[in-house]
């Protein structure tokens, strides 16, 4: 796979090292000469000095051959423009942008970026996995983000307690994928009963997350 990385900061630098180790073809574009000098001894030919927002540079660097374009600079506007240029001018199939301001995530998707990485949200959901009990924990968004893998511990308040999965009213487009009970993973069927303390892992769409949480934890949605 040919991966075209724009931005040779910490994220771009470590990402390209890993990609090279995994045997991928990688090009990192870095516009700051000082940063370029710092990383080029390690990365060699993989890194190129140039502005990833200049169409000329992207042509010279062969963006049209890229299977994936990853924009990981510290500036959201630059990451957006790189991905849009990759799509509209170079017909790159998949673009991934780092989002520095979490509020920009939805806008990036709306404006045609395929995938976004939002470190604020990733760290936040990792923290939630540690601290929240009786909450619905987002484990991972699946590709394109309209399906999420979530987890919740079944509480004694849950309306689903001691009932078979086929008898509870799951919100639309929600599937119970696995149950962790006494450190064992169960792959449930319709007749599997949910017990207190079960860790329920489900696939759902974000609009249904609140009603799923209510079903599993008994917690009412906070009124705004």
């Amino acid at each position, binding site marked *: 796979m040919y991966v075209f990385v724009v931005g040779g900061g910490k994220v771009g630098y470590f990402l390209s090292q890993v990609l090279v180790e995994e045997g991928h073809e990688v090009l990192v574009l870095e516009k700051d000469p000082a940063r370029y000098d710092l990383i080029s001894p390690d990365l060699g030919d993989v890194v190129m000095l140039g502005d990833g*927002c200049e169409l000329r540079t992207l042509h010279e660097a062969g963006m049209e051959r890229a299977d994936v374009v990853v924009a990981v600079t510290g500036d959201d*506007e630059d990451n957006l423009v790189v991905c849009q240029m990759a799509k509209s001018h170079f017909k790159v199939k998949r673009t991934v942008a780092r989002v520095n301001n979490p509020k920009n995530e939805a806008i990036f998707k709306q404006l045609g970026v395929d995938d976004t990485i939002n470190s604020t949200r990733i760290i936040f959901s990792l923290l939630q996995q540690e601290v929240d009990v009786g909450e619905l924990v987002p484990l991972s968004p699946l590709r394109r983000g309209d399906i999420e893998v979530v987890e919740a511990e079944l509480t004694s308040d849950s309306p689903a307690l001691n009932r078979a999965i086929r008898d509870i009213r799951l919100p639309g487009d929600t599937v119970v994928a696995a149950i962790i009970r006494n450190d064992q993973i169960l792959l449930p069927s319709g007749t599997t009963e949910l017990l207190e303390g079960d860790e329920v892992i489900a696939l759902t769409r974000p609009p249904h997350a609140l009603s799923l949480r209510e079903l599993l934890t008994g917690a009412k949605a906070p009124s705004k």
Partner: protein
Amino acid sequence: MRLVILGCGRVGSMLAALMTREGHDVTIIDTNPSAFRRLPSGFSGNTVVGTGIDQECLQRSGIEQADGFVAVTNGDNRNIMAAQMARHVFHVPKVIARIYDPIRAQAYQELGIDTLCSTAIGSGVLQDYFLGRPFRSIEQYIGLCDLIARSVHGGQTEREGEGA
């Protein structure tokens, strides 16, 4: 009309002055509060401190009620992103971004964002001035972006045609 201007540099502040003089309702945004010193004394519009690529900041500027939005910061990409937010998130009827890079201006024009490439206009005007030709229309000057964009796609080198 109600106009939101992003960037209180020379163009932004002058446009704000021209529009308020004709009685229009202007809000101007800049990250740097000292940029507002460029506004005329007794400026009747509103000023908002913040970055134009943040939804909340745009909302504070009243963009939801605006008839027009123009992005004239000194960052091409910031102007592009802000203009797209104004257009696609806030559905402002008239949106334009000033873009220095003719190639990017052309690319976003093709993507349906109105762009004002002051580089193309300035160099076209200068060419007509020196060759003693009548001045062309704005559209014709903006069309020069296409010429530059094509030369890149045609695979010519950077130096060709620049002439020292």
